[in-house]
């Protein structure tokens, strides 16, 4: 069980969720639509993935308004940031062949 692949996070391991978390790790908060366009997925697909990430405690979704327009903001939690850092560290070990 010493191979770094065992340290990969099962929730973040999915390519789409990895991309969502990677984008949110660089942000304090980001609009749902911005992340949807950045990651290049459909609205329904992003909703589904955000639900999974929320259930894992990695992402928080907050609803609000900009003027009269409803907006959903996404942000990464402390737990999500730590999980992403661990996941990336495992990936780096794999690249380095450790």
């Amino acid at each position, binding site marked *: 069980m010493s191979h770094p692949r065992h340290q990969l996070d099962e929730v973040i391991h999915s390519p789409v969720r990895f*991309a969502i978390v990677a*984008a949110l790790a660089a*942000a*304090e*908060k*980001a609009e749902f639509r911005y992340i949807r366009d950045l990651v290049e997925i459909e609205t329904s697909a992003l909703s589904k993935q955000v639900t999974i990430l929320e259930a894992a405690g990695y992402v928080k979704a907050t609803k609000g308004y900009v003027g009269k327009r409803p907006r959903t903001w996404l942000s990464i939690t402390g737990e999500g940031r730590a999980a992403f850092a661990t996941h990336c560290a495992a990936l*780096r070990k794999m690249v380095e062949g450790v």
Partner: protein
Amino acid sequence: MMKRDAAAALAHADGLGAKVRQRSLWYVRFLVLYSVAAFFVVLVIGLNPGPVGAIASMAIWAPALTALSVYAFKQPVTRAGFTRRHLLIIGSWTALYLAVLFPGTTWFGGNLAWWLPGALVVALPGLIGAYVEVRR
């Protein structure tokens, strides 16, 4: 997962992070415009002692702050650590603004030698903040 998949995933994450940081640079424009407005507000107050200066400064400050707030609220993303850095900049600005304004209105009304450097000092937190944002 293969070594090359891991490398590709890391490169993808770096690319997404870079795009988010690039899109967050709206805050640089915000800070520069805020600093310019703060500079003129202090000059107008200082060089026009009394109610004229106060009214004229509000005529600059109120629309500038409204426009900047609308601009900020419309942005789709803020960079990690945004709130902490913003509070630090606004806190510094407030302290310097008061440090220039109180002695200035008490002893140096209309004195350009006080108000011009004072206005520059008040503009500094935003300009330094903008510089740091660009450099990150």
